[in-house]
């Protein structure tokens, strides 16, 4: 796959959630340029074109949206968000935080660090699928990303 064309970067360590999100986006023809990484460390390497993505990724080709799970091993979603939003080369990339718990006190923290949106994953299958569809339509088709 050509990494410069990636429009959705899905950062998700939960296999089932990633699988379901990808399948739902595929159903609506929005997964052609989706790329999935399994933790925050790899997400940062991908976005900044470092580590295993050093020669294959150009930081100038920003995804249209980053879907960022909060609870992840190695580097969690909040640290990843912080690094993206503190660097002026990447801060204009829309980042949508995904979390499983509604009572999460992280919501204010995420917004104050510059998260563009904060979504609580619906618990049931249909609700989650509908949320992913809505999210894909919004960030790929309604929202205007930064034009290069």
């Amino acid at each position: 796959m050509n990494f410069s064309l990636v429009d959705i970067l899905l950062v998700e360590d939960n296999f089932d959630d990633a699988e379901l999100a990808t399948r739902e986006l595929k159903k609506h023809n929005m997964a052609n340029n989706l790329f999935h990484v399994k933790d925050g460390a790899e997400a940062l390497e991908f976005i900044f074109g470092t580590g295993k993505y050093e020669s294959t990724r150009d930081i100038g080709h920003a995804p249209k949206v980053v879907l960022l799970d909060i609870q992840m091993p190695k580097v969690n979603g909040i640290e990843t968000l912080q690094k993206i939003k503190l660097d002026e080369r990447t801060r204009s990339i829309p980042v949508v935080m995904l979390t499983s718990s509604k009572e999460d006190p992280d919501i204010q923290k995420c917004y104050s660090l510059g998260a563009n949106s904060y979504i609580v994953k619906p618990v049931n299958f249909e609700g989650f699928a509908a949320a992913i569809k809505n999210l894909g339509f919004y960030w790929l088709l309604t929202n205007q990303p930064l034009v290069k």
Partner: protein
Amino acid sequence: MNANLVDVLIVEDNPDDAELTIRELKKHTKSAKFFHVKDGEEALQFVFGTGKYSGARNVSNLPGIILLDIKMPKVTGIEVLEKIKSDERTQLIPVVMLTSSNESPDIKKCYDLGANSYIVKPVHFDDFASAIKNIGAYWLILNQNPSR
């Protein structure tokens, strides 16, 4: 109406666009409370509870979301965005920028100032209506706002 309990603050000087926006949002989000102001100066007075909203509005009752037109008389949408996002009392309010032009300098500037989303208003009525529907479905139903 109670100016302290507003789900959507619509800042729009064009009466046709404002009417269409409110009508579409009402159609798809039955219980949401809307408030419409016609320029950036009034938007700031509303958000910060100053000027004509002094006494009627408390700054800590954040609107759920602000739909903010860019080109407006007196104070532009970009100036309003900057003031909201640089004040810690109001910076968590999700702000969606709306513009008629598809010029990239504004896009980067808005994202850098902390805009949560940037929408180019479609020219045709039906497309504009469906964009507003998507905005409502996303920000009023799916997204978790910091203040609610």
